[in-house]
């Protein structure tokens, strides 16, 4: 016979303002098996927990029901309270009467009735609970960082600093990400490469860090502490170990007309190339679409010229399998495609460029060696007009509904750089709002206006068109209430940013959740911002939401701290709610084995006695409890009802359903 204690929480007035807590505890006291039913202002407080602990001892309770907030908030708290009073922690049930009752109902009578029903449901389930014990699993002391931009670099460096091994897997031929393409950084105007490349070198030289560039995640198995990841190392047709990065091949290559994606396609590069001077690894790569040798077998100049014989036209993709305890996702962003914004003429006029293209134009290592030239005729522009919020804050379906967060600051930066280097250039900026929260950020923007004389126009551009050699920007000035036609030599669009498209596949492989804008979801918006809801998966940088560099670096370090905390443990407590098959019911169909995402189920041949001395060998499912994460996929798949989950058995679920339906 179970002896159940019921504890109804007021949650200050969060619950008690809408739910008659006195009535709930009085009604639930009448339920069979309930020996004590109480209510208290804050069950989660030390006094509230003491109430539970004392009642367990005093009334010799075998089970506890707490009617309070969501179990996601305080289930662990109450389990600990039960455990410290000598009760098995799995003999606790939480009825959620806050998120599911008081916060969503207005009528007190209705809400009280629903709270009582949910309390009865928890009691019905608890009657069938049995004590469970959680096993333990070892932690593999190695982390994987997916993405080698500033977020991934910072996370990897911090994890390595703590003494753990880290692999960075980067899909492009070099680490560095978007930051490597930037010219200067706000709000200090120091050069992006000068602060990023030392960190890239640190990664390369750190013996704890292994960098796998031009590689992608192919498969992920396992669970927190024990991930098995398949990584595809794509063929770069150059032996990484032999190549010294001397660059002879890139000079000799006759096929020089490939678009240079590092320079945002503003100039060309040879078929064999090193992405940029400070690339890590400093190793050449061949573009097979462009290489004459790989396309039609004629050429081979680079192989002849290479002093270390590093060129290998026969190289194939290679799959490496590695094991990790934790995974950091740092897949970053890209600017959105502007195909829905024809009014700005991006695809029509060469002199309409995106901000990231403008970064390359202003960059000393860029296509114009840092000279401000417009792409069409290489003339130095005298009037530049910037348009902010291109595709950001757009709920019409053409762009993105969110604020991209970084554009106000980098546009102010661009304007200052232009006015600093070319003081005779007129710079106009169309803005909807200037959003500059952050240390020294608003001061930075005001400097652009007050010291650099940048012409900020509150309003938006409706159309960009060509008149002779020049572009005309038609827009509104809402402060002066007039429509402007500004003749400009160049137009720069602050395009919205979106998560890198590769993140969708990665999120699927990691079984972690993604929001409607393809940003990865954090476990808690405020209190768990770097953890994903999937244990062992952590989020670093823009893959979680738009961020600038300082914020990305802070988050990357926070992420590393969480990874270090995990890797520092020798063993992790496993989940106690594991699945198990009733061998007498199992038909050996293998369906559960196929759906198990953790590879916890195997099939064994087992001998059964049939009576009368006869035996039979049957194929039955067997669950490895150390690997099972208790997701329940097998139990709902099993056609014969053989598979059941401890703590969430079919009987328990049906008892809950019955308790709800009886009312």
């Amino acid at each position, binding site marked *: 016979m179970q002896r159940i204690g019921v504890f109804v929480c007021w949650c200050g007035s969060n619950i008690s303002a809408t739910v008659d807590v006195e009535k709930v505890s009085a009604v639930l006291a009448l339920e069979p098996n309930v020996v004590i039913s109480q209510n208290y202002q804050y069950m989660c407080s030390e006094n509230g927990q003491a109430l539970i602990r004392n009642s367990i001892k005093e009334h010799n309770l075998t089970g506890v029901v707490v009617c309070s907030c969501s179990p996601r908030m305080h289930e662990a708290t109450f389990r600990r309270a039960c455990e410290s009073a000598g009760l098995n922690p799995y003999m606790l049930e939480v009825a959620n009467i806050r998120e599911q009752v008081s916060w969503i109902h207005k009528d007190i009578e209705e809400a009280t009735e629903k709270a009582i029903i949910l309390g009865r449901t928890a009691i019905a389930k608890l009657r069938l609970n049995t004590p469970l014990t959680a096993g333990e699993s070892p932690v593999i002391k190695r982390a994987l960082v997916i993405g080698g931009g500033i977020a991934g670099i910072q996370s990897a460096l911090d994890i390595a600093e703590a003494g753990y091994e880290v692999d960075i897997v980067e899909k492009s031929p070099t680490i560095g990400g978007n930051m490597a393409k930037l010219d200067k950084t706000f709000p200090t105007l120091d050069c992006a490469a000068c602060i990023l490349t030392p960190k890239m070198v640190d990664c390369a030289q750190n013996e704890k860090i292994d960098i796998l560039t031009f590689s992608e995640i192919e498969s992920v198995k396992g669970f927190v502490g024990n991930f098995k990841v398949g990584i595809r190392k794509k063929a770069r047709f150059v032996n990484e170990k032999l190549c010294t990065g001397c660059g002879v091949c890139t000079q000799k290559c006759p096929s020089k007309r490939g678009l240079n994606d590092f320079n945002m396609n503003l100039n060309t590069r040879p078929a064999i190339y090193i992405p940029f001077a400070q690339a890590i690894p400093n190793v050449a790569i061949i573009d097979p679409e462009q290489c004459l040798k790989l396309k039609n077998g004629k050429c081979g100049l680079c192989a002849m010229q290479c002093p270390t014989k590093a060129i290998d036209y026969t190289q194939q993709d290679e799959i490496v399998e590695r094991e990790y305890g934790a995974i950091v996702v740092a897949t970053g962003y890209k600017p959105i495609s502007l195909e829905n914004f024809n*009014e700005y003429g991006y695809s029509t006029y060469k002199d309409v460029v995106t901000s990231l293209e403008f970064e390359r134009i202003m960059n000393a290592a860029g296509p114009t060696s840092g000279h401000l030239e417009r792409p069409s005729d290489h003339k130095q522009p005298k009037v530049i007009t910037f348009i902010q*919020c291109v595709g950001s*804050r*757009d*709920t*019409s*379906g*053409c*762009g993105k509904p969110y604020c991209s967060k970084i554009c106000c600051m980098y546009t102010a930066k661009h304007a200052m750089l232009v006015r600093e280097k070319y003081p005779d250039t007129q710079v106009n900026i*169309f803005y*909807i709002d200037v959003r500059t929260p952050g240390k020294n950020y608003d001061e930075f923007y005001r400097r652009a206006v007050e010291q650099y004389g940048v012409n900020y126009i*509150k*309003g*938006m*551009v*409706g*159309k960009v068109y060509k008149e002779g050699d020049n572009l005309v920007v*038609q*827009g*509104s*000035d*809402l402060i002066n*209430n007039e*429509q402007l036609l500004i003749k400009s030599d160049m137009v720069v669009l602050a395009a919205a940013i979106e998560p890198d498209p590769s993140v969708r596949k990665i999120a699927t492989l990691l079984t972690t959740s993604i929001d409607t804008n393809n940003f990865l979801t954090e476990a808690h918006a405020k209190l768990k911002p770097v953890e994903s809801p999937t244990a062992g998966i952590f989020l670093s940088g823009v893959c979680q939401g738009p961020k600038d560099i300082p914020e990305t670096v802070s988050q990357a370090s926070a992420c590393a701290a969480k990874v270090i905390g995990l890797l520092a443990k020798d063993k992790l407590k496993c989940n106690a709610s594991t699945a198990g098959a009733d061998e007498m019911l199992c038909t050996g169909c293998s369906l559960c084995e196929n759906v198990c995402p953790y590879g916890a189920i195997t099939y064994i041949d087992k001998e059964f006695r049939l009576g009368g001395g006869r035996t039979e060998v049957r194929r039955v499912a067997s669950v490895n409890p150390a690997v099972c994460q208790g997701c329940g996929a097998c139990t709902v798949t099993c056609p014969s009802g053989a598979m059941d989950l401890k703590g969430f058995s079919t009987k328990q679920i049906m008892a809950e359903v019955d308790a709800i339906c009886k009312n």
Partner: protein
Amino acid sequence: MNSKEQVKIIKERSGTDASKCMKCGKCSGRCPAYNEMDIKPHQFVSMIEKGEIEKLLNCKAIYNCLSCFACVERCPRNVAPAAIIEAVRQEVIRMQGGNYINSEEIPQIVDEQIPQQLLVSMYRKFNK
């Protein structure tokens, strides 16, 4: 009918939610009739939201709007300034209670070159 009810009716008739406007001004940035509009497209959205109906009912812009829908097309927030302008225009015409186009006079003034859309829009502008 008081002005509050009028605002409600105009909002309803326009079928657009002016509170979604983020005041970017792109509608007025694109408006080809901007100089002829004594009240600009973005002001229509803001004034209907604030309930400033008197000025709207007495403005010239409701007749000068080309109904080209450039403002609707460009709005990043799915607000339709042209629909609000049209709803105000309709309200004015209904208040006046008269028809300014007589269908019997149409055949004399019409020639084959006039697009049918123009006739429809003429009716919408000038008739009850």
